[in-house]
């Protein structure tokens, strides 16, 4: 036995729960499931036209609490648009109109990092070139700042999970915290400019942890000097409040909502069992905020049905509300919401939304109707909320395969022509490359037969869409039993695997237990990928995790422990089955499947070829670092610079790294206080390039939290 083997063997003993934390997860942050039909869906088809007047009446009932005038228009297959007082009703024509308002000039500056994804196209790309593969090893910490908004869960405040992208715009660095404060910092020094504290409720109303993914910024096209709230910063809270403050002073904007606060829960009128948690900052475009929400889809069957709101950026007045679920199903299901970030083509004015699965997550016997917009990527007209096209990525989702990441928009070169494309990552591991104007696949999507459910009452879809090109981010088949874990457990892993159902991807949950690969953790997660728009190279991190899905008949189900997003027992409302979710570990807590547990890969979108795929990060358990060849489960996202670098935190080992775009080789790494599960901001301020990470941790990876903001640059 070599020293390396000995190291691995010993490391394995201590590895224990490590991936355990990582895996089960995400059902929380994800929230819901999907419908069945498939394929591209043209907007305003006959079915959507049908019953328009009925829909109007019914949807008005939904908005019972609202005193606003509204009109409802069916859109897309099963979707509806409810036009608010500040909005403009869809034309109702058979063909959805395409807005063409053009980009906001203030957002298109190359030095800034003005949105959650760096820009509206979710490219996560900076044209900055000062820091290069040749000099990145000289990168040093310039400053660090601690927000003070952190909780390890040991007191009255739930554990904090902080995934905020810092925004750099208006010569200021803006951060939202998991306690829902806004902090404005001087970018070069980290000195505090101002803070805003809404005194938000710090309770786990929908999520098990206090979560926040940052703030959004808007400014008027022609800001008037000396006039307040010409530039605004927004933050949402878990209890559905959206705050708007002046970007220069931090003072609440009186014209926004009521004295700076908009209660979004006023529109939560159907199955309103919990508030519409505003953890993801809105997407800002053309003086409008596009706002989704998060909830939970594992406790109830009927839950708030998925909606996206378009709000006037100055006043918060509602322009329109998009409803993702058909009216006739919402008594028995819900969610199919948009809890992750969106992307937007500023040239065409199309908004791309990743829609999650309907509730409950893992049993669909109560919702067998077609819900074509669930677990889909859907393009909306930003002016009217109409569906322009939609593509369902999982039919009748019973795996919690929410569409979780924003599609990345990029023009790719094919046959000498530039094609407007988008890349939609997914939990199931596929990268769907579509024409973003039509939704048609650029690389083939094939409907293939998949295993049937053997659970009474369940009607799993007979086929599901598969993608071969680009190569999926994880293998087609589950990795198989790890010999090491099997030896350590005296054969427990292999014995357990033999008793589980597994017939490939999309094997339905079962009573005996189903190997889910990938499970609810993905594959890819909410961070999505990054792209170099010049070369068409797309980079994405991913997870290789195995979980066991087990349905439990209602009369046998007991609500035992539930560790939030990491596994346990989920009631699934009053459906015929409860659910048990567990990560496939042995008695020692070692993963029963073969590593690597996390990788990062690069793809040439022009050809669909995968350029490289390497283990990324290191697992850390009890302080011990596991071998690099095992990789790490990751949460977060890479960003790319024109100089050929990838910056990413994301891994369990509390390190941030710079990688070579050409090879994936780690060129620089730096220890931070916890896993940096946010995406970094790369920007240029006063002629100098900076990289800033918000370091917050995530209980899915490790019970390690922080409130650190840390910025790096080259020495002067």
């Amino acid at each position, binding site marked *: 036995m070599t020293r390396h083997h*000995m*190291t691995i063997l*010993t*490391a394995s003993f*201590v590895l224990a729960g490590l991936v355990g934390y990582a895996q089960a997860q995400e059902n929380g942050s994800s929230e819901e499931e999907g419908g069945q039909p498939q394929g591209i869906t043209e907007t305003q088809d006959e079915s959507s036209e049908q019953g328009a007047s009925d829909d109007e009446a019914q949807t008005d009932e939904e908005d019972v609490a609202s005193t606003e005038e509204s009109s409802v228009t069916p859109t897309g297959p099963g979707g509806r648009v409810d036009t608010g007082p500040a909005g403009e009703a869809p034309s109702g024509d058979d063909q959805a109109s395409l807005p063409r308002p053009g980009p906001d000039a203030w957002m298109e500056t190359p030095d800034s990092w003005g949105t959650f994804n760096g820009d509206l196209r979710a490219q996560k790309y900076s044209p900055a070139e000062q820091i290069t593969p040749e000099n990145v090893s000289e990168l040093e910490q310039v400053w660090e700042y601690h927000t003070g908004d952190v909780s390890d869960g040991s007191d009255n405040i739930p554990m904090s999970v902080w995934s905020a992208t810092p925004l750099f715009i208006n010569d200021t660095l803006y951060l939202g915290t998991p306690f829902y404060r806004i902090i404005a910092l001087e970018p070069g020094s980290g000195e505090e400019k101002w803070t805003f504290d809404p005194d938000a409720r710090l309770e786990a109303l929908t999520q098990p942890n206090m979560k926040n993914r940052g703030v959004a910024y808007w400014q008027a096209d022609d800001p008037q000097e000396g006039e307040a709230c010409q530039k605004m910063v927004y933050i949402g809270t878990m209890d559905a409040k959206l705050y708007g403050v002046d970007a220069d002073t931090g003072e609440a904007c009186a014209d926004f909502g009521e004295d700076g606060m908009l209660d979004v829960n006023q529109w939560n009128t159907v199955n309103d069992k919990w508030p519409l948690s505003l953890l993801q900052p809105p997407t800002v475009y053309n003086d409008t905020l596009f706002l989704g929400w998060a909830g939970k889809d594992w406790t109830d069957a009927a839950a708030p049905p998925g909606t996206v709101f378009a709000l006037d950026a100055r006043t918060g007045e509602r322009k329109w509300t998009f409803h993702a679920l058909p009216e006739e199903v919402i008594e028995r299901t819900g969610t199919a919401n948009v809890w992750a970030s969106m992307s937007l083509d500023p040239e065409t004015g199309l908004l791309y939304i990743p829609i999650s699965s309907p509730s409950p997550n893992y049993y669909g016997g109560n919702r067998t109707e077609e819900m074509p917009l669930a677990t889909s990527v859907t393009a909306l007209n930003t002016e009217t909320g109409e569906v322009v096209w939609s593509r369902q990525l999982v039919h009748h989702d019973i795996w919690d395969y929410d569409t979780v990441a924003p599609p990345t928009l990029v023009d790719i070169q094919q046959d000498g022509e530039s094609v407007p494309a988008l890349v939609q990552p997914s939990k199931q591991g596929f990268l769907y490359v579509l024409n973003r104007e039509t939704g048609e696949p650029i690389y083939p999507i094939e409907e293939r037969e998949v295993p049937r459910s053997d659970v009474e009452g369940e009607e799993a879809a007979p086929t599901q869409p598969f993608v071969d090109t680009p190569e999926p981010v994880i293998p087609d088949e589950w990795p198989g039993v790890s010999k090491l874990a099997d030896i350590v457990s005296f054969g427990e892993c292999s014995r357990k695997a033999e008793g589980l159902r597994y017939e490939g991807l999309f094997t339905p949950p079962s009573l005996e237990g189903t190997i889910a690969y990938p499970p609810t953790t993905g594959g890819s997660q909410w961070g999505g990928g990054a792209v170099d728009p010049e070369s068409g190279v797309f980079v994405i991190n991913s997870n290789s995790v195995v979980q066991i899905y087990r349905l439990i008949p209602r009369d046998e189900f007991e609500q035992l422990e539930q560790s939030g997003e990491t596994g346990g027992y989920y009631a699934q409302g009053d459906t015929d089955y409860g659910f048990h979710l567990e990560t496939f570990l042995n008695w020692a807590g070692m993963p029963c499947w073969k590593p690597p547990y996390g990788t990062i890969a690069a793809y040439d979108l022009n050809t669909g070829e995968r350029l490289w795929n390497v283990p990324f990060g290191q697992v*850390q358990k*009890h*302080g*011990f*670092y*596991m071998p690099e060849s095992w990789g790490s489960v990751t949460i977060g996202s890479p960003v790319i610079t024109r100089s050929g670098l990838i910056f990413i935190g994301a891994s369990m*080992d*509390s*390190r941030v790294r710079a990688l070579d775009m050409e090879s994936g080789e780690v060129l620089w790494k730096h*220890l931070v*206080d916890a896993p940096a599960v946010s995406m970094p901001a790369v920007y240029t301020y006063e002629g100098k390039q900076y990289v800033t990470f918000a370091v917050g941790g995530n209980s899915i990876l490790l019970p390690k939290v922080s409130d650190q903001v840390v910025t790096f640059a080259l020495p002067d």
Partner: protein
Amino acid sequence: MASNPQGTPYGAWLLLASSIIAWILAVVATFNEGNGIAYTPGTYLVLFSTTLLVIGALLLSFVRGMGRGLSGLLVFLILLDLLGTALAAYLLEANGLLIMMGVGLVAWLIHLVADPASGKHHRTTQRKEAATS
């Protein structure tokens, strides 16, 4: 075991020195926040193991009355401690500690081949004392 029954136990002293340095490094690793491993079970483990190592090295350096079996057992346990701590240090990426374990292993080897054997030396001395009384 040792080939120098009358000499200075350089190996044991070197082991003691490296153990003390290792213990200090383990303390720093355990309580120095921001190193990525502080306050983890892994650092508590090396703190405990280096404490044992220091005790073992002290016994090896200064106790002359141990029987052959006990002395051999002590030397064996020290070897296990060195190897185990080295592995833990490797996995903790505590390079200073790992280097000290390397030095400790060299010291252990020196002790094995060159240091006076404490148990044997003690009995030889006793016999000589008995013969001259």
